[in-house]
């Protein structure tokens, strides 16, 4: 069989925000770039991002600056973020947003004609650049069109529009290849035909997004199967803190077919309130001590905040996502939930119908068309949904280079460290711009100094054999049922609230499914065969689930997106530790690694009394790492 072969300088896996931003940067550095995606071009999960992109431009409140944003990010992540990533992100986010405008993006405006910014959970000032509630779509479209602009430029210069950047859509990567310990390319298959493809490239940027499909109730599309996490592990990279998953507090709960679909946080940012079946605005009961000085403890003050933010504390509905998700979970479990197991979220009483339709147009449509609910008149029913993974590939903050694998880079949701134990809404869209650009730039530098690294025939043969295997087995396991079993396990045993005994059970059960998955067989041919596609996605999800469960059992505390019923509080010792997952070819292993301490300049940005809530007396006494 002759295999389709391509040769590029940089290979980008994933065409969401991070991948496209990396592609633009690498191409502008003069390199030839291939973009590979599992879906059609422009369908990446980034389009689902609704609320906005956080950047301290200070257009609405000029008290805002990168230092305030940095503090909010560290606080939101419960001081487990890698300080350098949070710093770079806060400093560079405004430039990345303004740059999009020079590529044609059209954000909503302030009265002065600047980019408008909205309030969001955990952000001290209105900070999210937005376009109604379809900000992610605007980002993807803008970068998709920027790629076309670069292709047109290449076309004018070479006569071939695809000479500098080519998009390989509907192609799944099954292996990242290495020679002599360094990246040499990737191997995969066209989803359409099942035909195999070899890419030779000395640098690979992983930008594959998240892992939501590992869970039963999720806001993620079918693509969120942790491919990049698993590919990186198999290529010898590490994952950091895979126990931290963000359950977005407000997913749809009814009807069952839409369970998990996201209800944007902007609903709360615009004034939506959460109530239980007693009509009680319950969030006032759930303000943690560390946030008491920033959040209103009574309705009157919370309501005043929407008009006067300088003299009032913000409503508790806008607490970081982990707090709100846990609160909803508790209300429902205590029997104060709605008929369908959620709580009520209501904008209709506070905001006029026309304003709702204008500010939250896609939410109005989503509820009207999918649930038969008119949100201008009635409350929505909402509950937590698996939304985002904070854990991911361990990278060097400045270059997005994967630790331990020369030539491998990771950016966006698939990379770990930036968001610590909990991501603030709006920080993801700017994360992928800031670190997508850095990954593209660093990959270009790497390629220029390292040159080609050809793939060996042995590596090709091994990758090809793996793709053929499920077709050669007969009467084996069905990938759909194994996937459903895995989702039950993660949902029941590795969900929002965890315990040591359940996690132990989960680890055993996941191992069992992994054993059975080695015997998956596929019916039908190679041509656009979803059963065949799922067989490979399943393998990735199993590895991710194993890393998550093993990290979760190791971390004996509750922090951000990791809540242990048997260890219900934060523990200063654990704040200083990252759980590092690696793969030995057989199983995932976890080791503890010290989290780098903030340098004095960043340490001094915080009120010492705030740091005392998170750090040990020794850390406080040291006052930063230098």
């Amino acid at each position, binding site marked *: 069989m002759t295999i389709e072969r391509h040769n590029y300088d940089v290979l980008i896996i994933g065409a969401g925000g991070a991948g496209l931003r990396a592609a633009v940067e690498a191409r502008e550095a003069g390199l030839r770039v291939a973009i590979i995606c599992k*879906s*059609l*071009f*422009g*369908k990446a*999960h980034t*389009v*689902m991002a609704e609320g906005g992109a956080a950047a301290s431009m200070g257009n609405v409140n000029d008290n805002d600056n990168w230092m305030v944003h940095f503090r909010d990010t560290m606080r939101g992540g419960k001081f487990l973020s890698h300080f350098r990533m949070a710093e770079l992100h806060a400093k560079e986010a405004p*430039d990345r947003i*303004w*740059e999009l*405008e*020079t*590529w*044609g993006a*059209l*954000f*909503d*405006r302030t009265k*002065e*004609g600047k980019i*408008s910014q909205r309030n969001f959970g955990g952000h001290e000032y209105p900070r999210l650049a937005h*376009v109604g509630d*379809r900000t992610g*779509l*605007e980002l993807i*479209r803008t970068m998709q*069109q*920027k790629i*076309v*602009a670069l292709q*047109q430029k290449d076309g004018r210069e070479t006569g071939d*529009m695809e000479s500098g950047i080519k*998009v390989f*859509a509907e192609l799944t990567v099954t292996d990242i290849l290495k020679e002599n310990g360094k990246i040499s390319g990737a191997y995969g298959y066209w989803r*359409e035909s099942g035909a195999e493809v070899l890419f030779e490239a000395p640098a690979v940027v992983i930008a594959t997004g998240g892992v939501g499909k590992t869970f039963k109730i999720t806001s993620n*599309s*079918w*693509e969120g199967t942790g491919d990049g996490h698993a590919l990186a592990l198999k290529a010898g990279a590490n994952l950091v803190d895979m126990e931290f998953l963000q359950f977005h507090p407000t997913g749809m709960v009814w*009807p*069952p*077919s*839409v369970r998990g679909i996201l209800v944007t946080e902007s609903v709360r940012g615009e004034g939506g309130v959460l109530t239980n079946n007693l009509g009680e605005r319950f969030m006032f009961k759930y303000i943690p001590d560390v946030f008491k000085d920033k959040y209103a403890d009574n309705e009157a003050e919370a309501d005043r905040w929407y008009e006067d933010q300088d003299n009032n504390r913000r409503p508790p509905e806008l607490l970081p996502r982990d707090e709100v998700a846990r609160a909803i979970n508790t209300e429902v479990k205590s029997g104060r939930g709605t008929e369908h197991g959620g709580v009520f979220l209501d904008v209709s009483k506070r905001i006029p119908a026309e304003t709702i339709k204008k500010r939250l147009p*896609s939410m109005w*449509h989503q509820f009207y*068309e*999918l*649930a038969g609910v008119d949100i201008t008149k009635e409350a929505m029913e909402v509950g937590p949904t698996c939304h985002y993974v904070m854990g991911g590939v361990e990278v060097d903050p400045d270059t997005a280079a994967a630790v331990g694998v020369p030539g491998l880079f990771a950016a966006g949701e698939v990379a770990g460290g930036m968001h610590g134990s909990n991501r603030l809404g709006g920080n993801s869209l700017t994360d992928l711009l800031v670190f997508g650009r850095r990954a593209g730039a660093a990959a270009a530098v790497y390629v220029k100094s390292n040159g080609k690294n050809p793939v060996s025939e042995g590596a090709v043969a091994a990758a090809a054999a793996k793709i053929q295997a499920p077709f050669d087995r007969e009467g084996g396991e*069905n990938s*759909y049922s194994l996937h459903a079993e895995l989702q039950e396990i993660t949902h029941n045993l590795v969900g929002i609230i965890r315990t040591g005994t359940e996690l132990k059970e989960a680890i055993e059960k996941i191992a069992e499914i992994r054993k059975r998955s080695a015997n998956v067989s*596929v*019916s*039908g*041919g190679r*041509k*656009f*065969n*979803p*059963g*065949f596609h799922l067989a490979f996605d399943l393998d990735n999800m199993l590895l991710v689930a194993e890393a998550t469960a093993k990290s979760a059992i190791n971390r004996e505390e509750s922090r951000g997106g990791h809540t242990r019923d048997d260890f219900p509080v934060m523990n200063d010792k654990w704040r200083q530790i990252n759980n590092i997952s690696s793969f030995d070819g057989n199983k995932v292993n976890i080791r503890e690694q010290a989290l780098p301490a903030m340098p004095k300049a960043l340490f001094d940005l915080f009120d010492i009394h705030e740091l005392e809530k998170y750090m040990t007396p020794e850390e406080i006494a040291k006052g930063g790492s230098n």
Partner: protein
Amino acid sequence: MARNIKLRIWRGDSTDGGLKDVVVEANEGEVVLDVIHRVQATQMGDLAVRWNCKAGKCGSCSMEINGKPRLACMTQVASFGEEETITVTPLRAFPIIKDLVTDVSFNYKKAMEIPAYEHPKELAPGQARMEQIDVERSQEFRKCIECFLCQDVCHVVRDHEENKKSFAGPRFFIRIAELDMHPLDMLKNRKKTAQEEHGLGMCNITKCCTEVCPEHIRITDNAIIPMKERVVDIKYDPARWLGSKIRRREGL
């Protein structure tokens, strides 16, 4: 509240195919994509269908449902009669790959033919000032989720393969209109090239595209008609006509 429904699915590829009848369970509140997925998981493991977000935001699950171009994720099973058979077929205007999946590369080729946005050179990042009312016109078109239902329904290409070469289609007329109305775009003559290079003149405003748009973009009224009117103005305005002749002479 589960009940059995009758579904008729087109199965096959570019060489051969036909409608296959199946009976499948449907639960309260489910959409057509849900029952297609159930068929896939329980009866036809290799049934090909594109989808992504399942929330009407990505435009992947475009197909024809009882002959109408629709998003399967936004079409409620309950919108059909209890005894009615729901027939799902691939988009007719594009070549079939397999089952419900078609080759939509036509659209990506057209996208590459539309000249990109040109930012004013002197305007540094962060310096742009635009009124909300001015960006809203283009924002309407930027809501497009590229489901290509408008491209599928448009009779200029639906049954006329020969027109595809010279016709960009409604999705790209709104792209041109969006750039044309963009407060900062510097490229001139977008309307003229829409007419001369992208086939705007072939559209005879039957509004089929507007009717199928899941984002409710007023493609015909707000993009196509205004551009057509302006093209006519430019063509028949005597002063402009004379101006263009004089300039052309100067160029000789």
